[in-house]
């Protein structure tokens, strides 16, 4: 009796050990040491954000499934949750998302946390056509010298003009910052809004930094993590920005890009410098009062030539994806050189490939495509550092406060420099 009991206990333990071993091996099968997939992949998960680009990716996922049989589950993330959720997912042992869409200001945080796989070996594929991008756009896709993402949309800041208002006052679209100021002043004298700038306490800094880059300045001293907001260019940009404040719609004193665009499409604003990504809103007659009476031109040149900032969606493969090669196959399918017609057909603003200038579909659907490619060729990105969101909020806060209490450009700049320097002191990478 007792021997039988012992035997059955041994059998039970042996069975449990076998079951455990099988479970462990089953859970780990499919992944090779290099992260590649050794089994047939039947589905992937892609995180997209609500946007024309996200909608296009969702449709392209269906095309991909029809072609390859690989299903792509779509998870839609709110804009403010994207980085946090990808970062949290990066801490999991198995991939929550294989492919992710994110905005360029989130890039450094994601890449420095190790959430994104390197795409260096993939982007060289001829089918993708990385060399079709201007060097500035390729650089915009690199963090610390490594390509961890590819451009999904490219959105340089350009000059937006209300052509009716300018024509009614015998003004021409500004080619220089001096002309921009002159136009703004003339429109202001006529009781209109001559300019449109953002002073939001959380995102206003993007628009002031654009002014800084227009004047030839930069956030950090080249190649360092030291703030450069004490430069002559920064002083000129701050003075310019606060000089324009009385000529900007009151609503944007607490708003960022969306608020600026909403003010512009009401028809009382003569000009603004803003991202090309707002085109679909301004041209939409259901939202805009000026769908036919606006024009986009190169950003005004400053004392140091023509500069601008460049933003836009990026797409990448997560570092813990079990099937990075398949994930790349999808990205190449959706964003490769030959995929642009379909992307544009789906209503997404395209990445700034040089070949778009010769693509008839692009010329028809995106009248500003030549401008997009031209502006992207000299567009710069803000330094990629994980503390960028803290810098943006901190500068936005003092910008907003200076606008609200009237303390003006000098007070703003002194505080902005001090805060940026203090935050950058904690940063290790600023490239």
């Amino acid at each position: 009796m007792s021997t039988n009991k012992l035997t059955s206990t041994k059998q039970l333990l042996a069975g449990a050990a076998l079951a455990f071993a099988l479970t462990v091996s089953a859970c780990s099968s499919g992944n090779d040491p290099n992260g590649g997939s050794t089994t047939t992949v039947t589905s992937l998960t892609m995180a997209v954000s609500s946007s024309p680009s996200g909608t296009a990716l969702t449709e392209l996922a269906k095309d991909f499934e029809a072609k390859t049989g690989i299903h792509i589950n779509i998870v839609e993330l709110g804009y403010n949750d994207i980085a946090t959720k990808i970062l949290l997912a990066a801490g999991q042992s198995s991939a929550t998302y294989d492919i992710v869409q994110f905005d360029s200001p989130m890039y450094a945080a994601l890449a420095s946390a190790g959430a994104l796989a390197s795409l260096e070996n993939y982007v060289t594929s001829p089918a993708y056509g990385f060399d079709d991008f201007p060097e500035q756009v390729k650089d915009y896709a690199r963090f610390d010298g490594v390509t961890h993402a590819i451009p999904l949309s490219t959105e340089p800041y350009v000059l937006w003009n209300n052509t009716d208002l300018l024509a009614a006052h015998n003004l021409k679209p500004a080619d220089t910052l001096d002309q921009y100021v002159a136009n703004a002043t003339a429109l202001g004298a006529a009781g209109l809004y001559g300019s449109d700038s953002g002073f939001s306490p959380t995102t206003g800094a993007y628009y002031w930094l654009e002014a800084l880059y227009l004047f030839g300045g930069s956030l950090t001293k080249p190649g360092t993590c030291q703030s450069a907001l004490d430069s002559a260019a920064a002083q000129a940009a701050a003075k310019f920005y606060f000089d324009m404040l009385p000529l900007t719609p009151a609503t944007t004193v607490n708003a960022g890009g969306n608020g600026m665009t909403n003010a512009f499409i009401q028809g009382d604003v003569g000009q603004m410098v803003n991202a090309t990504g707002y085109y679909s809103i301004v041209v939409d007659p259901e939202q805009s009062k000026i769908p036919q009476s606006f024009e986009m031109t190169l950003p005004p040149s400053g004392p140091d030539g023509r500069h601008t900032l460049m933003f836009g969606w990026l797409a990448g493969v997560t570092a813990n994806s079990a099937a990075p090669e398949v994930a790349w196959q999808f990205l190449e399918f959706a964003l490769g050189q030959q995929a642009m017609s379909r992307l544009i057909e789906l209503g997404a603003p395209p990445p700034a490939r040089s070949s778009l200038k010769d693509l008839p579909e692009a010329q028809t659907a995106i009248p500003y495509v030549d401008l997009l490619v031209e502006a992207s060729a000299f567009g710069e990105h803000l330094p990629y550092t994980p503390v960028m969101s803290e810098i943006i909020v901190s500068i936005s806060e003092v910008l907003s406060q200076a606008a609200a209490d009237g303390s003006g450009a000098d007070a703003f700049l002194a505080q902005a420099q001090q805060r940026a320097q203090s935050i950058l002191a904690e940063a290790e990478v600023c490239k």
Partner: protein
Amino acid sequence: MPTSPVVGGVRSPHRSPIRRRRRLSGLAFLSPALGILIIVIALPMAIGLYQSLTNMALTRPGAPDFIGSTNYENRVFTASFGRAAGVTASIMVLSLIVQLPIGYYLALCLSRRIPASSVFRTILTIPMMLTPVAVGLMWRFLADPDLGVIRWIVSLVDSSAHPNLLASSSGALLLIVAVSSWSHIPFVTLMLLAGLLAVPDELYEAAAVDGANSWQRRWHITLPSLAPVLLIVCVLRLAGDYRMFDLVYTVTNGGPGSSTRNLSMLAYMEGLQYYQIGRACAIAMAMALLALPAFFAYRKVARL
């Protein structure tokens, strides 16, 4: 030598097997609830406390380092935290000052037998049904300096006026208080109305027979009868405004500058905008500690 605590030949009642069994069975019955409390409150608090002592950040791969009180020194004992605490206190106090008298007055009106009072009560509950984010966005639009209704109303009086509540520190704070009050006055009203309807009519009749005027009846009967309800209302509203996030986020986003950034917003920014979990936990722990005196004060008052 006795091995059990027998005093004067009588077994100590505290150590008697029956009492011990009862205590154990009581603990056994309580254990599921205690377990849940430990899992949902004590454990997260302990984890939060530990994380507040580390440099944990979502952008920093690997295990976080223990950094002692650095997060508290750099993020709690600072002017920025003090300002946020001041904003939080201002919102709490101003909201209560607005909500209690108006809620009390509306409750008094609704407690009378007026025609269609049920319709008024239904209308009154509408703001309570709306989600705070929708309320915040709606009010932000109403306060828009170019397109909002507030500007339009002011322009009826002075066409050149261009009020911009969102661009003024005090205006933005008052707007938050107004929106919070608009949302929560119905709750205050309904709670006080329930309290008012529970006061026996006989008390008022007896007071009237004794010659008390309406002010005396209100002061000596209504208010003392409502005291427990008032206390609950105050505590709930203060707690709600202490941890308010949604309205601040949607109406002013903490601006202009940091003039409406309260403690919840500060913790949110550190944790979910800057990805600094350790710092956010330090702020959250400080928030919990700051709330403790109020908790003990409430317990003391509630016992009276």
